[in-house]
């Protein structure tokens, strides 16, 4: 098999931080190489060197035997190295239509003509869309599309560049199962055409579906290479974490008194109303695919949007929060999803990010008490195992997993009645995910915890009970037990289940 890209002895430091410590890696043509690594292992830095964002301090990269050191992303792209980044909005231009987005590199090409030829542009864009199985109106504006469609466009756009080495950084993180399948089909096609693919992900289901080989990174080095006809997935996870994965069964919590109730709640116009009760000490995972109504429940309880219909009760009293501030004052906290947009204050240090909602509790006649703030932050840092130099580090210097820990710590630092965690494991590595999960479970006494997750395995990992939603309707509630998993799965994908009525009767009374 031809070697597409050879990386040898790459070193990269940012200030005193040695991020890459002599990385050696070979990427053969016509092969999908999966790169796994915890956050902070150096994956992103390696990708940025390959795609021309950073320069390596030492070491060489060769592309088909020729020396390759791109000065800029466009340089890398000219040489046939194409990257689809994790942040979707860097890959699309929201104000343009789909066709222009797909053909944007053609437009930016200096040899292109001065005037736009819309029909020709659209015809070519349609061709690209067809090869990708992209079922979209190419005249639609990208800003009107969902996250998943945008991601597919970003990937399709990369295809127009005729890549020799295609790098995908967590491309499925916002795709539905069907869309992911389409992507995998496409990757298989490209592989047959001889493209070398570097695929970065920690999703085991993706990895099982497409990997030809697995390379793991840890602490800035390659920690394992797994090859051959049958891949050792367990071994890869161990090599990535540097420790054995423990599948501990959860000790289910004893439920306390009821705290919060939804009565005759309706999430969308055509769904049927349902009741739900949340008890003290309990962790309830609310799962469902994109658009299943998870966000509607979370925003209603946190005072962002009222329920379409129905009532909410807190300690048996009617509860109608006017704003997040109102909800917080009643002990209802929410850690929102998409931390970089909704949670992280990037100009602030860890301490100020942590205490942001509770500044009034740490001030005297509006004057802040810095000692109190720092004490609060250091406690959370040690409880959650946040990796940092001190509590005064800028939050943006932390890796994604550690940033998420800060955001979780923000809402665990004060006592709550109901804690809503919307996608708490989004974009975090397995180690951070376990730290966060165990801290949530340890602290769950005396409150009801609602965890909103799209991934079923995350729900199974953390919850006492699992609620399944499907397209705005309530489908069922289950105890988190081995023999319920099959039922949960079938409801999750929208299939009716015989045990449904039974489940409702036994658990939601």
């Amino acid at each position, binding site marked *: 098999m031809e070697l597409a890209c050879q990386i040898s002895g790459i070193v990269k430091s940012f200030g005193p931080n040695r991020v890459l410590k002599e990385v050696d890696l070979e990427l053969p043509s016509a092969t999908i190489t999966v790169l796994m690594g915890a956050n902070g292992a150096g994956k992103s830095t390696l990708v940025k060197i390959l795609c021309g*964002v950073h320069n390596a301090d030492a070491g060489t990269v060769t592309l088909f035997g020729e020396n390759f050191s791109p000065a800029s992303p466009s340089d890398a792209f000219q040489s046939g190295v194409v990257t689809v980044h994790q942040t979707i909005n860097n890959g699309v231009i929201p104000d343009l239509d789909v066709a222009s987005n797909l053909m944007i590199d053609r437009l930016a090409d200096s040899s292109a003509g001065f005037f736009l030829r819309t029909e020709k542009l659209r015809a070519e864009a349609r061709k690209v869309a067809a090869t990708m199985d992209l079922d979209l109106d190419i005249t639609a504006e990208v800003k009107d599309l969902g996250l998943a469609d945008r991601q597919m466009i970003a990937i399709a756009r990369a295809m127009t560049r005729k890549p020799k080495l295609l790098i995908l950084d967590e491309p499925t993180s916002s795709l539905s199962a069907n869309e992911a399948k389409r992507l995998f089909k496409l990757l298989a096609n490209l592989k047959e055409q001889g493209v070398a693919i570097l695929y970065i992900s920690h999703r085991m289901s993706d990895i099982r579906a497409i990997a030809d080989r697995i390379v793991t990174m840890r602490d800035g080095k390659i920690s394992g290479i797994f090859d051959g006809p049958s891949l050792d997935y367990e071994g890869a996870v161990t090599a990535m974490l540097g420790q054995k994965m423990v599948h501990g069964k959860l000790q289910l919590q004893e439920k306390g008194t009821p705290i919060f109730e939804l009565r005759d709640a309706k999430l969308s116009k055509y769904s049927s109303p349902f009741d739900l009760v949340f008890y003290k000490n309990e962790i309830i995972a609310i799962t469902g695919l994109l658009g299943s109504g998870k966000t509607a429940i979370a925003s209603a309880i*946190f005072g962002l949007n009222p329920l379409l219909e129905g009532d909410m009760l807190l300690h048996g009293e009617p509860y109608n929060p006017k*704003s*997040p*501030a109102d*909800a*917080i*004052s009643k002990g209802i906290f*929410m850690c*929102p999803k998409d931390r970089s*947009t*909704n*949670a*992280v*204050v*990037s*100009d*602030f240090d860890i301490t*100020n990010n942590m205490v*942001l*909602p509770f*500044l*009034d509790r*740490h*001030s005297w006649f*509006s*004057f*802040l008490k810095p000692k109190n703030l720092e004490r609060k932050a250091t406690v959370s840092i040690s409880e959650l195992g946040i990796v940092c130099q001190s509590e005064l580090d800028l939050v*943006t210097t932390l890796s994604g997993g550690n940033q998420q820990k800060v955001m979780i710590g*923000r809402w665990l630092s004060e006592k709550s009645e109901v804690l809503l965690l919307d996608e708490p494991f989004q974009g975090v590595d397995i180690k951070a995910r376990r730290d966060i999960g165990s801290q949530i479970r340890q602290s769950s006494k005396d409150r009801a915890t609602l965890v909103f997750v799209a991934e079923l395995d995350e729900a199974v990992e953390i919850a006492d009970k699992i609620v399944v939603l499907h397209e705005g309707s309530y489908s069922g509630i289950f105890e988190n037990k081995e023999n319920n998993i099959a039922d949960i799965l079938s409801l999750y994908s929208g299939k009716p289940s015989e045990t449904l009525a039974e489940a409702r009767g036994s658990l939601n009374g």
Partner: protein
Amino acid sequence: MNMRSFAIRYGFLLLLLGLVLFFSIVAEGFAGPRSAVFIFQSVSITGILALGVTATLVVDGFDLSIGSVATTALMLSAYVMVVLEMSAFTAIIACLIMGAFVGLVNGLLIVKARVPDLLATLGMMFLLIGLQRIPTEGRSISTGMKLPSGETAEGVYSQSFLWLGRHRLDFFLENLIPIPVIIFLLVGVFIWLFLELTRHGRLMYAIGSNETATALAGANVNKYKILAYVISGITASIGGILLSARLGRGDIASGNNLLLDSVAAALIGFAVLGAAKPNAFGTAIGALFVGVLLQGLTMMNAPYYTQDFVKGSVLVIALIFTFALSSKGRKTSH
């Protein structure tokens, strides 16, 4: 600490120190308490306006109307005392209420009507420049002027009002420190305390960095944004009162440079101590920096028409400090 971060942090302060030393040696009479006080006095009014605009920059806004709020306060105070023949106290209160009201309207335009900040305050600037000319048909206000009604304005600037602009306190030397300098320092300390040490200031910085996140942390984002514009309006009206007290008449042509000078001071402030963000201390230093440079150059016989060029150059250099050298600027560049 390596060279680079040292340069980013202290570079601008060292540059200021170097300038002071340079002028002390080269320009005779530059070093001395009277000259120092003169510098402070020359920047006190722009400094006060700049501190207000800093508050709006903190919430990631911008107030272009400060210059016109100040000149409106100038005309309003003259009108109240000279034409309406009311007391100095009434004049001051009227100006402060006017400033707060304009700030409130700016805030509501931005928060409720969703007009972008630059456009809302640009509109307000235009409106005020026009409004202040209407009562006197475009003429300056002074005692003995002929009013549109045909009568003669008989009111005078009261001594206590003029005291605000002209009195000097003894401080080691007789008649050393002018009242406007004291007020500049007081406003500076107040804004600094508010932005750095109170939870309100902290939340305003949070809003400037990530508005959505701050709202989801339970802060009333709209209230704080409006508050920032009210602060800006009030400080601008204080600047206008002091300008009026210094001039002793409602001069329609005064204060043309106020907006640009004070915005420049606030932006230069980004570079001080490597803050790379709006901050009260930096703003005050930024204003002083410009003052030192102009005073020194003037004493070295640089002609007056070079002043704007000098200010502009300082601003450009400060912006390079902020955005090209510091890591913050780097981050936002890609």
